[in-house]
């Protein structure tokens, strides 16, 4: 660690409550601790943080894997169902031997091998308006990697109610987008999509792995940025990509004064 890359003493003092790093962790995370803006304090923030990832398939599984590798303290994964053959082309946390197993149990086992110091809490149901506040309790950031708008809206409403940042990602085929919601500084998902797009029925959406992995990776980095303060998150910006031609766009998104979810919280 070069001296100039270390956070200043005042910053460390301000965050004295953060967990410390073991010598093993210092060597495991050496390369990212040297990342500008992250540092040892950023690493300790990751270790002290809890993230809810709703659906841990192609998108969310990538987020969970990256966060476990990066040294997050705690992950809460919500995803229903069992591992099916057609999941294996994109669900990074599922192996062939997991066919037929409860998805979140297989995911939890993979993450324990990836990084045994991460606490992984599992819920074998998708997020919905009834369970979402319980799932999000204690989460510092919520990740919406769910395909259906009912789930996505439930996660968005919980994030706004609990005043937690929400990283939201979605994809179809080789198209997808990511944005980071942090009301009142940004619009919420319901400002961007006041109603679910009528053609959005994603139970059988087409997908090839690199697109979900790429978007999930961007979403994971958003979580790391929000938690550590390094870099610039996608606030008020929706990053859209189409990998068919490798085209990327940054779309400005704005709050709606009359938003049914965040309008009253101005």
């Amino acid at each position, binding site marked *: 660690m070069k001296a100039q890359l270390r956070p200043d003493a005042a910053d460390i003092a301000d965050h004295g409550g953060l967990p410390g790093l073991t010598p093993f962790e210092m060597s495991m995370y050496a390369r990212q601790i040297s990342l500008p803006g992250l540092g040892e304090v950023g690493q300790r923030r990751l270790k002290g943080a809890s993230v809810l990832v709703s659906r841990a398939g192609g998108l969310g599984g990538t987020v969970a894997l990256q966060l476990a590798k990066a040294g997050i303290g705690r992950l809460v994964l919500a995803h229903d169902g069992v591992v099916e053959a057609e999941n294996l082309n994109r669900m990074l946390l599922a192996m062939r031997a997991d066919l037929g197993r409860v998805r979140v149990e297989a995911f939890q086992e993979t993450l324990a091998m990836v990084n045994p110091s991460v606490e992984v809490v599992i819920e074998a149901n998708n997020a919905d308006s009834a369970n979402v506040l319980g799932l999000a309790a204690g989460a510092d950031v919520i990740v919406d990697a769910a395909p259906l708008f009912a789930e996505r809206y439930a996660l968005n409403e919980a994030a706004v109610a609990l005043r937690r940042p929400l990283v939201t990602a979605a994809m179809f085929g080789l198209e997808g987008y990511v944005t980071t919601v942090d009301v009142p500084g940004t619009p919420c998902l319901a400002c961007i999509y006041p109603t679910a797009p009528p053609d959005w029925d994603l139970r059988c959406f*087409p997908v090839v792995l690199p697109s979900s992995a790429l978007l999930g990776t961007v979403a994971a980095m958003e979580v790391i940025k929000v938690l550590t303060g390094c870099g610039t998150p996608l606030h008020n910006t929706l990053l859209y990509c189409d990998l068919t031609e490798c085209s990327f766009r940054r779309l400005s998104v704005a709050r709606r004064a009359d938003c049914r979810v965040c309008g009253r919280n101005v």
Partner: protein
Amino acid sequence: MSDPRAAGPLSDEELERYERQLRLEGFGLGAQRRLRSSTALVSRVGGVGGSAAMQLARAGIGRLVLAHGGPVHREYLNRMQLAMHEDVGRPCSEVVAERLRAINPHTEIVAVGENVCEANVAALVEEADVIVDGAPLFEERYLMNAESLAQGKPMISGAMYATDGYVTTFIPGQTGCLRCLFADRPPDWTNIRVFPAIGPGPAIVGAMAAMEAIKLLTGFGTPLAGRLWTFDLADNLTRALRIEPSADCPVCATAVADHPHPQAVPHPR
């Protein structure tokens, strides 16, 4: 493309496994079978190459040749997606081969326990339909570049530093080469043992490189031929820079003249 597996239909398990990608418009059974009949050489299976190899195995490529020397070090764990905590000290190529087999037994994995070097580069490239260059050292990258031109095989190059990354695809006779882009090793590209890296950096480069390989092998979509895609995860700024062949490139200007490839088209002006 003489692999006998190309001829047979997809098995029921394969049809089910690839169901979601078979639904992609413009992909379909033909593309899946082309992928299954293909081999990619992946040079280094760390952050970038390991991520690309994993995606290609999940997508159903027929065969992967993985070249990587040396064991998993503790500080690789934050970005080597297929290396688990317990793998520290084991050879990288073996670890990755074992994980890939657990992911997809339909992909044949050839683990080569050494990095690409002058002695092995010709034979390794000979095995492959496409080269995925995820090597951090320019010495290795230049060797593969020269061999890609000599054998007329496309090479996808991906690299990262801190939160920055780039990917481009070189097609002999159609685009410039790595030497056109970097005539000499960048002077600041020296000590690869200390560069800053966090998982998402190499993962995004590896994902894009894998997408490029899938495009080249199946004919699906538009590859980054003649375009350098750059990404900075710190602010999510992306660019696609047009890159031109260098008329006096010491490597490809000569190689293409000496070994014209059937598909070769004149360099764009």
